[in-house]
């Protein structure tokens, strides 16, 4: 078996695919290192500028919370750079993405970022196919398969030897590339190369090995099923296209179709004119209720106006939450559907490890939620009441017993005194163990693919007619 592996590996190392892959790998990974080092510096310096001094800037009406720059984005960007880098938070746990800090270079084409997971999931998977498609069918075509198997070599050993050789031939350029990228990052940004980063890198490499091994098994399977190597390659490529393009894209489309998301416009209308009108109607109705004798005292009238305001605020929260939830639901559905493809499994697991995907965002929102309790307690202590601002207001006046009362929508109070004890917002990013827990399902999926394809490949090869 050692002989087989050695011979196969030598064959691969001399082949044109291998050389090209090595060149691609080193080029792309060094580009990755340079780009992400630059990007991290830029994002991090913006973050440092914004949060210089106390973070957040003390205020009892509204505060800004900034997201730390994620040092693992070079592994898997996961849409992180397009997410809002700041949120505003008000009393009663109300927060929202701030539109002032969105990505600025919106004129460039939207293409996936050149991170490790992108290079591995597209380029390397394709090259594993190119290395493996002729493993059995090529030898069959040339008649050497018969010769090899007439020696005292078991078929299982033969195929296992081929498998190991393919995987090694793909992993060598991968490791070389990763090394180059890591060295560049280590030189430019020595501060991010911590134990944590290294363990994430190693974890991603393990994940990549599992992912590439699945493609090695797949090409061996197809190669033993199909006699002509060019047809085997065609079939493998068709499968690759299905995995990388069709399943993810179609699941995006299906999710858009199946999930009921209120349109951008409908939500905007509910949040704006609709709720505003409801509240105004209630406020305008107060005079009539006074005349009917339902409200007699000034306190009762004021309480009623406050109730109207609060009900409006609740409606706002409801529509916002409904929108956010259904968008998140749709994204989850799209991802669940695309998990049929191992490429998506790998991508989502890599995103989780780099804390950049949907789960990374959820973790940050949890951080805000837990901070908002501290903030509420602080505001309560300083100003004595919790009021969250609204995007509409009212001001009107009514008459009770000939006395006129002004009704204004409540405003959160700006505390003018000493705020040196303002609570600090400290973001706690998820640890590796938590990240792995998120990725567990996807990793299991990759293993299942491996076992399934390995079983099929071996059983097909054992039964195949080698003449």
């Amino acid at each position, binding site marked *: 078996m050692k002989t087989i592996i050695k011979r196969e590996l030598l064959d691969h190392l001399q082949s*044109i695919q291998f050389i*090209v892959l090595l060149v*691609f790998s080193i080029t*792309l990974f060094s*580009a990755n290192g*340079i780009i992400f080092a*630059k990007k991290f510096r830029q994002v991090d310096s913006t973050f440092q*500028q914004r949060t210089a001094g106390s973070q957040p800037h003390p205020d009892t009406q509204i505060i800004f919370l900034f997201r730390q720059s994620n040092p693992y984005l070079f592994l898997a960007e996961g*849409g992180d750079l*397009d997410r*809002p880098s700041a949120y505003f938070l008000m009393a009663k746990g109300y927060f*929202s*993405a701030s539109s002032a800090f*969105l990505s*600025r*270079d*919106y*004129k*460039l*084409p*939207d*293409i996936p970022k*050149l991170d490790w997971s992108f290079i591995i999931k*597209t*380029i390397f998977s394709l090259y594993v196919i*190119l290395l493996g498609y002729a493993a059995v069918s090529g030898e069959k075509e040339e008649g050497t398969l018969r010769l090899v198997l007439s020696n005292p070599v078991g078929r299982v050993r033969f195929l296992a030897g081929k498998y190991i050789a393919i995987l090694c031939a793909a992993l060598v350029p991968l490791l070389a590339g990763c090394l180059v990228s890591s060295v560049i990052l280590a030189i430019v940004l020595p501060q991010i190369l911590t134990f944590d980063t290294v363990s994430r890198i190693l974890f991603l490499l393990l994940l990549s090995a599992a992912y590439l091994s699945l493609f090695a098994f797949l090409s061996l399977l197809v190669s033993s099923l199909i006699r002509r*190597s*060019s047809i085997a*390659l*065609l079939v493998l490529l*068709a499968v690759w*296209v299905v995995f990388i*393009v*069709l399943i*993810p*894209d*179609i*699941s*995006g*489309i299906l*999710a*858009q*179709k199946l999930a009921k998301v209120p*349109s*951008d*416009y409908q939500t*905007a*209308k509910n949040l704006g*004119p609709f709720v505003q009108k409801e509240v105004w109607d209630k406020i305008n109705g107060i005079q009539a209720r006074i005349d009917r004798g339902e409200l007699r005292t000034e306190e009762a009238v004021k309480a009623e106006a406050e109730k109207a305001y609060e009900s409006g605020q609740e409606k706002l929260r409801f529509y916002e939450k409904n*929108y956010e939830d259904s*968008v998140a639901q*749709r*994204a989850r559905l*799209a991802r669940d*559907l*695309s998990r049929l493809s191992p490429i*998506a499994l790998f*991508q*989502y697991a890599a995103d989780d490890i780099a804390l950049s*995907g949907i789960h990374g965002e959820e973790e940050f929102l949890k951080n805000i939620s837990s901070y908002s309790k501290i903030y509420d307690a602080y505001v309560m202590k300083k100003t004595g009441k919790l009021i969250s601002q609204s995007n509409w207001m009212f001001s009107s006046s009514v008459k009770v017993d000939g006395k006129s009362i002004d009704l204004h929508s409540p405003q959160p109070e700006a505390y003018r005194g000493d705020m040196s004890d303002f609570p600090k917002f400290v973001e706690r990013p998820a640890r590796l163990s938590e990240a792995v827990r998120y990725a567990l399902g996807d990793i299991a999926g990759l293993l299942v693919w491996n076992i399934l394809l390995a079983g099929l490949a071996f059983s097909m090869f054992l039964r195949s007619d080698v003449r």
Partner: protein
Amino acid sequence: MIGTIVKREILDYLKSAKFQIGLVVTLVIAVVATAINIQDFKLRQQDYTAAREEMKGNKYEVLIYRPPQVLSVLVQGKDRVLGSKASLTTLTIPDRLTGYMGSRGAERQRSLSGFGSVDFAFVVRVILSLMVVFLAYNAVSEEKSFGTLKLALANPVPRHHLLLGKGLAGLAIVLGSLFIASTASVLLMLVQPFIVLAGSDVMRILNLVAASALYLIAFYALSLFVSVLVNRPSTALMILLQLWIILVVIYPHLGVDIAENFFRLPGDRELSAMKQAAFQPYEAEFNKVRDAYRYKGDRSPETGRRYFELQALESQKSHEVDLDFGRQLTRQMRLAQNLCLLSPAVLFDRMANRYARTGLDEYERFMQGLARYWQTKYLGLQKLRYEDLKAYQKAEVPAFDYPTERTAEAWIATIPQGLILCLMSLILFVLAYAAFLKKDVR
């Protein structure tokens, strides 16, 4: 003689599994994608009309909405993500559109499965170009490896006739598939009652199909060339795939990455400093007038009017800085495109977006229209308040519209890309031809 060869080759292609499977896959994806995009367009169109009716601003804050482009059904481009609403006041001329809910909405739409969207342009760029590679990789290499090339050339057929015949047959098949896919997509659009295609839209669709044809021909020429050069079909296919992944995936990617990271843009702070500097000469007067108007109760028409003029001037100065920044962003985008001048996929994308009006050119035309509207009609309306209050109260918010691009303009703008694609195909065909004439066919 050529006729016989073309006929035989076409029949061979039609019977081959790769053509049949490829055509079915192409057709299914094109139809499904177009159907979904039509639904999406319908919803966006409804939202747009409803927003114009229901979400009117007041006379001071004028809300302008951007209509969705009908051809985004075929080429999504950036139409969905660039936003759909602008709010104008004396204090602000927007330099960028937002979603209906502010900038959040438009951004949020994107986070689906994390992969891209599918439309007719995608089908051409990825699926059909791959199909072209599959169809053509063995045009010559397989006959050579089977030994039938020798036989074919033993007949009284000149070599160039054989290659020409093969080339024409392959092109006919490729263009035929393109024709079927585009006809299916367009027919699907035409039967929708809410989609009204103007004459210029039809012209644009024809241009789009022609651009697709140019793109596919370039790939076909490349495949033919490799097929002539390489003797083993599987090696030819391998080389072609590597070229495909370079031209369609890696090269455009690196171009954007370089432009994104090595093009210096001013930071937020620099921009606000520039805005402040631009208004510096008027700052003192502005402060004086504002204090008089707002705090000292000087409500004389002259003061009010001066206050308004200075406000407008400040927005204008800051808009000039924004405009300059926008121009830099455009230069950055152009740099990304020009770095990828040799990738047929990028050339095709540029042409497709231009014809479908879903690229940045259309967006910028809209934004220019917006700035002009603010300058002339909006400010004119606000001025009335200080000149003739009664007329202001009676006045209606002036209608907004912006000049549409004539098809000829789009056509002229895409000539360079078209020429490069033509040139590429021509050179590759000539190379294939020369290589075939000198080829050892044994």
